[in-house]
């Protein structure tokens, strides 16, 4: 990694020659720093935003790329417990019942380990000094995706995730080569069943369609021939193995080239095509820039990829310094995924909610880590927001801000007159959420009142401004600001909440939390 970084740094100079306009140093203020933290990470506290902005663009970008903390702090390691699969071989001689029992136990151990890793990963997103690494890992997890449900092996999935953590900012060609022999991917796209005389085209198809070229840039014949080049890989305990006798050593014709290609040769032939850097840069930009990519950007970044022989560090270095990245068309146009939304609340609050809670909520909102819906990963963008998920986002935000215990959750949902529906049904209706929240509670320590004291505000307008700044990734609209101020003023008049003279100290905490709940339920809260 570190030698990679040095090379990357040396390349800065050369990347500047690509026609993109760099953001002038003096244009990098707090709004820009906030945007950078939103897109490269999961947002941050006002302090983090300010210090990033104070250090200036160049230093801020370096810090984002290499970790916010100056010390060489590495994230907490996750120890993979090897699920003992050696039993499998002995199992054949056992009676059916025994076999079934062992199989079930193995599956349970596996599922638990996967659950632990999901939680661990979310905790890294919440607290890691290098949020960009987590964001990038999340991006690659949706790009070269594999799902635990299909692979049914937590070790494989965890190792794939480690690959993204380690190589995510390295070189795309290297990453692709690793993926072609990654045990989880071999199984997920059936390349472990692809051998000489009995080809399976699944992986070859997705490599071209989703990973490198995009539809229309290859023929069915190319897929068939590439699948032949990909033959011979199988999964064995300890990792993927290449079996020469399963490999088709004959000549292949791929994309107009001819040779006795193996897997890496075939990938090289594919990456040689002009469509490849265009496709890859488009997919990266769509994630980090948003669905509306400014004109010309895809082509420029494709050239950059090509010029640096697929190194990714200069790509992101240039992107995060690019004036277009900070243009009004881009800033705040992107809908957060459930994970980004929930982790973002923790990051902006400055206090991490428990990882398991975010995992549970995110599952309910449609983003189950390690279980993307299909080989395309998560569709993203507009697809995240439905009538139900929009309301649920607001509900979950409240639990992250206000805390909960099991009883309060049931009461929240049952407080409405529910007709013939009794409490029991409400309880069972909340299903997995309730199961996960059972016997557990979460109460954040941060007091909204303290946040206001720090900011030294007292007026309703001041309170709304500070809390919006704190919890929203984008500026609040004038409509929302006015209505939130009216809300506070109203509560003040009604006097119920002991909101006397507008001195921050005397605003009841529960009213402030209600206000933050409203802020996080706004359309603005879904955007970064």
């Amino acid at each position, binding site marked *: 990694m570190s030698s990679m970084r040095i090379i990357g740094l040396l390349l800065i100079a050369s990347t500047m020659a690509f026609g993109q306009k760099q953001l002038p140093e003096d244009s990098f203020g707090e709004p820009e720093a906030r945007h950078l933290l939103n897109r490269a990470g999961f947002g941050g506290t006002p302090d983090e935003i300010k210090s990033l902005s104070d250090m200036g663009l160049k230093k801020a970008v370096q810090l984002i790329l290499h970790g916010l903390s100056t010390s060489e702090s590495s994230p907490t390691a996750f120890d993979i417990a090897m699920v003992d699969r050696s039993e499998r071989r002995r199992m054949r001689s056992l009676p059916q019942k025994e076999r079934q029992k062992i199989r079930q136990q193995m599956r349970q151990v596996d599922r638990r380990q996967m659950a632990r890793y999901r939680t661990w990963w979310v905790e890294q997103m919440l607290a890691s000094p290098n949020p960009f690494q987590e964001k990038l890992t999340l991006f690659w997890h949706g790009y070269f995706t594999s799902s635990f449900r299909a692979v049914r092996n937590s070790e494989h999935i965890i190792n794939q995730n480690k690959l993204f953590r380690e190589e995510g900012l390295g070189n795309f060609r290297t990453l692709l080569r690793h993926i072609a022999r990654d045990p989880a991917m071999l199984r997920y796209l059936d390349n472990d069943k692809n051998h000489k005389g009995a080809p399976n085209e699944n992986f070859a198809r997705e490599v071209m369609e989703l990973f490198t070229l995009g539809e229309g840039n290859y023929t069915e014949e190319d897929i068939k021939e590439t699948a032949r080049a990909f033959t011979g890989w199988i999964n064995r305990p300890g990792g993927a193995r290449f079996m020469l006798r399963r490999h088709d050593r004959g000549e292949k014709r791929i994309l107009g080239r001819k040779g006795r290609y193996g897997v890496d040769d075939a990938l090289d032939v594919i990456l040689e095509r002009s469509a490849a850097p265009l496709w890859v840069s488009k997919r990266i930009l769509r994630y980090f820039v948003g669905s509306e990519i400014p004109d010309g950007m895809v082509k420029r970044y494709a050239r950059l990829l090509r010029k640096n022989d697929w190194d990714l560090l200069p790509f992101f270095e240039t992107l995060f310094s690019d004036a277009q990245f900070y243009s009004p068309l881009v800033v705040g146009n992107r809908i957060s995924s459930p994970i980004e939304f929930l982790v973002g609340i923790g990051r902006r609050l400055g206090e991490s909610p428990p990882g398991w809670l975010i995992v549970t909520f995110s599952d309910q909102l449609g983003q189950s880590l390690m279980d993307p819906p299909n080989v395309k990963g998560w569709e993203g963008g507009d697809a995240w927001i439905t*009538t139900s998920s929009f309301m649920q986002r607001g509900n979950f935000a409240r639990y992250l801000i206000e805390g909960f215990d099991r009883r309060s959750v049931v009461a929240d949902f049952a407080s409405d007159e529910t007709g013939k529906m009794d409490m029991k049904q409400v309880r069972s209706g909340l299903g997995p959420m309730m199961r996960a929240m059972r016997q557990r509670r979460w109460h954040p320590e941060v007091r909204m009142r303290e946040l206001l004291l720090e900011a030294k505000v007292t007026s309703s307008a001041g309170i709304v401004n500070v809390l919006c700044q704190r919890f929203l990734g984008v500026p609040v609209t004038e409509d929302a600001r006015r209505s939130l101020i009216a809300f506070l003023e109203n509560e003040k008049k009604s006097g119920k909440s002991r909101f006397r003279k507008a001195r921050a100290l005397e605003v009841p905490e529960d009213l402030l939390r209600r206000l933050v709940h409203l802020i996080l339920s706004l359309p603005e809260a879904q955007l970064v």
Partner: protein
Amino acid sequence: MTINRRKFMTYSAGTLGALALSNNILSAAELNKLQEETDTPQNILVILQLSGGNDGLSTVVPYADDAYGRARSSTRIAPSQVLKIDNYRGLHPNLKGLHDLYGSGKLAIIEGTGYPDPVRSHFKSLDIWHAGNSRGRNAGYGWVGQTIDKSYPDIRDPNVVVHIGNKTPFSLNAAIHKPVAFTTPAAYRWIGAEKDAATLQKSAPLCEHEKQSGTPKSASGRDRALARLRRILHEAQASSSQIRQVAKNYSPKAKYPRSGLSASLATVAALITGGMSTRIYSLEMTGFDTHTNHRNKHDRLMTQLDGALSAFQKDLQAHGKSGSVTTMLFSEFGRRVQENGSQGLDHGVAGPMFLLGDKVKGGLHGKHPSLTKLDKGDLIHTTDFRQVYASLIDNWIGGNHAQVLGKNYKSLPLFQS
């Protein structure tokens, strides 16, 4: 019990009231359109998924087939117990209600459904059923989602497709009509106070952008995203109030036995009889993966299924709605013909589907698969499940099945003409 226009207006007073106050009223045309869509649709489809792989041979029992008795020593259902359909097959003894419905011509049994190159993994096989395509999820959208998107691209109502449950099945995956999903109406809400919800609506006034700078299409970046989110926020609050209101006003006209499926079906009945505009309801019953002790488990499941479905049908009938509702039952696969060593049944292939409703052409469809001519110990399917989808799309939901399923299937005569 249909919602008439006046009634909808009273709902609007509550749900869209804040809107009107905030001086951002839906245009008259939009409101009219919403009202029209709020009338109960003619044809409603309820999809019930039996998850885990329902054993067809224990559901529609070929009691007279010697091969059945030979293969099923511990799970076999005795001929005397079977609720007979003819001298070859009969229904599981606990399916009394369904047997009666069969007798009155309201139950269609499609035997031996499946697909070529069957997959025995739960989730891969479910994906194929959900997509209606052998590529499964990688085909893009679900068969229901595609049907609704293609047939009703202009409906604006957010409640067109409703799933009762936590995880929306892939079949409902759509580009336009994303499903509304909740386990119980009470859970389908934003949990802030009513007046806070009003604040929220005022914070996100509709059409702000349209008023300022023309159509939303010309908007870009954050403005476009905000305009869309604001609309969904209002739709969500309206949809949530409407669904909770309808559920609250509902009183069942049949006695549902206590079970999860009953509760879900009662919710569906509440929404249908309350005049919701929903065209597709989806729900799930789990527990069919009977690798061990099949007979006991399956018997219980059949009791629950029969009780819930019979009550549902009775309830709809008493409300005068049974003519507009068809219920479809399917499972991701049937089970192995031969028992395993734990009085259970492993994953198999072909199995029956069921259609229930007044407009259904009751009786037997398809062909019972042979119990002696097997493929690796499994029944060979006789009818492609997409033939059933084709009939549902063409003759019930409304649409063109070839457009949805990507090719022509021989549609089955499953509805009365």
